[in-house]
C-alpha cells in the first residue's frame, strides 16, 4: 500500500509532447483509413481523446473560476466546428484549422485580459486539435468510414438527420472533461487520470457503435451489421479495460486506513 504525499509538485510521468504526437499521428491517419473498415477510426480515436483529457488536466489545475466541465465544453465547441470543416473538405485541413483557430482564440482571451493563465493558449490549442481529431474519427466511424462525398452522402443523412450526432457530441465532451473532474484533488496523478480517460473514451466509442448500429439498420450498403457490432464490442473492451486498470491503480495508490483503537474514555 502506497501513501499520498500532499502538496508534492505534480510531475507528469508521461510527457505531454508524446501524447500530442501519438494523438495526431494515430488519429488523423485513422480518419483516412476508415475507407477500409470503420473499426479503424473507432479504435484510433482513443489516443486523441486521452491527449485532450491530459490537456484539461494541465489547464484546469490553475483554477479557472468556473468548473472543469466548462473547459471541456469549450473544447468540444471548438472541436465540432473544425471537425465539420475537416469532414466536409479534407481531414488534414480540419486539424490545421483547429490548431490555428485555437491559437487565435487564446490570443484574443490573453490580449483582452479575460483570463491570464500562462499556458492558456498552448492548452486551448491542444484541446481544440484533440477534440477535433477525436470527433472526426468517431463521426466517420459511425457513418461507415471517410470516403469521397462523405459529408453530403453519408454524414448529413445518416448522422445529422437521425440525431446521432448529439449523442457523439456530448459523449465526446464528457470523455474530455470527466477524467480530471473525477480525479482532481491533492493526490491526483497523471497515470491514474489517464487510465480513467481510456475507460471513458471506451464509453464514447461504444456510443458511436450504437449510432453505427442505427446507420446499419437504415442503409446496409454503407455500414454492415458486423462492423457496427464490432465497434460496440471494441468500445466495451476499451471501457472495461480502462476502468479495470483505473480501479486497480486507485486501490494501489489510495492512502491506507489504519485501525488506531478507541480513544480512551475521560475519567
Amino acid at each position, binding site marked *: 500500500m502506497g501513501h499520498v504525499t500532499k502538496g508534492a509538485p505534480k510531475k507528469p510521468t508521461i510527457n505531454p509532447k508524446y501524447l500530442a504526437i501519438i494523438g495526431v499521428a494515430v488519429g488523423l491517419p485513422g480518419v483516412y483509413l476508415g475507407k477500409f473498415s470503420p473499426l479503424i477510426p473507432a479504435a484510433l480515436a482513443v489516443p486523441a481523446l486521452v491527449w485532450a483529457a491530459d490537456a484539461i488536466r494541465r489547464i484546469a489545475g490553475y483554477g479557472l473560476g468556473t468548473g472543469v466541465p466548462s473547459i471541456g465544453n469549450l473544447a468540444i465547441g471548438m472541436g465540432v466546428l473544425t471537425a465539420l470543416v475537416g469532414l466536409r473538405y479534407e481531414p488534414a485541413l480540419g486539424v490545421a484549422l483547429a490548431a490555428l483557430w485555437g491559437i487565435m*482564440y487564446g490570443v484574443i482571451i490573453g490580449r483582452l485580459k479575460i483570463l491570464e493563465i500562462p499556458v492558456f493558449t498552448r492548452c486551448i490549442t491542444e484541446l481544440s486539435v484533440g477534440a477535433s481529431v477525436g470527433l472526426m474519427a468517431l463521426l466517420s466511424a459511425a457513418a461507415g468510414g471517410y470516403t469521397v462525398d462523405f459529408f453530403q452522402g453519408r454524414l448529413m443523412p445518416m448522422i*445529422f438527420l437521425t440525431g446521432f450526432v448529439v449523442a457523439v457530441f456530448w459523449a465526446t465532451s464528457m470523455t474530455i472533461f470527466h477524467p480530471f473532474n473525477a480525479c482532481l484533488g491533492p493526490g491526483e496523478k497523471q497515470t491514474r487520470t489517464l487510465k480513467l480517460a481510456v475507460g471513458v473514451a471506451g464509453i464514447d466509442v461504444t456510443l458511436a457503435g450504437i449510432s453505427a448500429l442505427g446507420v446499419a439498420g437504415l442503409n446496409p450498403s454503407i455500414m454492415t451489421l458486423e462492423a457496427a457490432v464490432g465497434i460496440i464490442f471494441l468500445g466495451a473492451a476499451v471501457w472495461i479495460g480502462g476502468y479495470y486498470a483505473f480501479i486497480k491503480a486507485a486501490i494501489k495508490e489510495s492512502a491506507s486506513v489504519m485501525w488506531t483503537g478507541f480513544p480512551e474514555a475521560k475519567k
Partner: protein
Amino acid sequence: MIDVMLLVLFMIGLGGILVCVGVFLIPIGGAPAAMSTATGVATGCEMITMGAGVTGLFLAAAFYTKSLMFVIITAGVSSALMLAITMLFTNLIVIFGKGVPPAFATKERDPITGDPIKPYVTPGTVGHGVPTAPYLGGVLGSFLAGAGGALAFTAMYRFSSGATLAEFVGVLPQPAPQVAAMALSVITAVGLYLINANIAAYSIRGVIESWLDPKFSKLPRVIAACFSASILFGVLILLVSIGGVG
C-alpha cells in the same frame, strides 16, 4: 454571395454580443447559491447561457419561416419566461424551504424598491435568493441572451438553406423545413454558445449579482472578446454550410 456572407458574420457576432451581455445581467450564483451563501440562481454560468441560448434556438427553429424581428422578440420573451420561472422557484425554495429572506450585500438598499436589504444578509455569506433588482436584471438579461441565440441560429439556418439577402430579414418562403440544414445549424449554434459562454464565465469568475456587481465594469472588454471570437468561429460555420447541405 459576399454580401450575404458578411451579413451572416455580422449576425453571428451580434448574437455573441447579446448572449454575453445577457450573462452579465443574469444573477448567477453557482455552487455557493445552492447552499444559499450567495445571491443568484444556483447553477453555473455556462449552463445558464446554454439554457437561455437553447430556449431561443427552440423558438427560432419552430418559427423558421417568420420574419427576423418576430423570431428574435418571441425567442427573447420565451427565454425571459424560462429564467423568470427559474428565479421564482429559487426564491420559493429559499424563502419557504430554507427560511432565509432574499438579500444581497453589495448595496444598503434595493435600488428598485428602496427597501433596506443588507441587514437581512446572514453573517458569513454574501446574500441569498434573488431580490427584486437582480430579478429584473435577470429577466432582461435572459431576454437578450435568448434573442442573441435566436439571431445566431436564424442566420446559420437561413445561410445553410440558401436564402437570399432579402430573405434574411424578411419572411423565408419555405413550405417545409430543410431538416439537414436545421440539424447542422443546431450543432454549430450550440458550439458557438459554448465558446461565448466560456468567455463570459471566465470574466465573471463564476458568480455575478446582475448590474449591481462591480464586475459589471468589465463588460466592454468582454464584448470585444465575444465579438471577435464569434467572428473567428463564424468563418468556420460559413465554410461548413456554404452552398447548402443535404
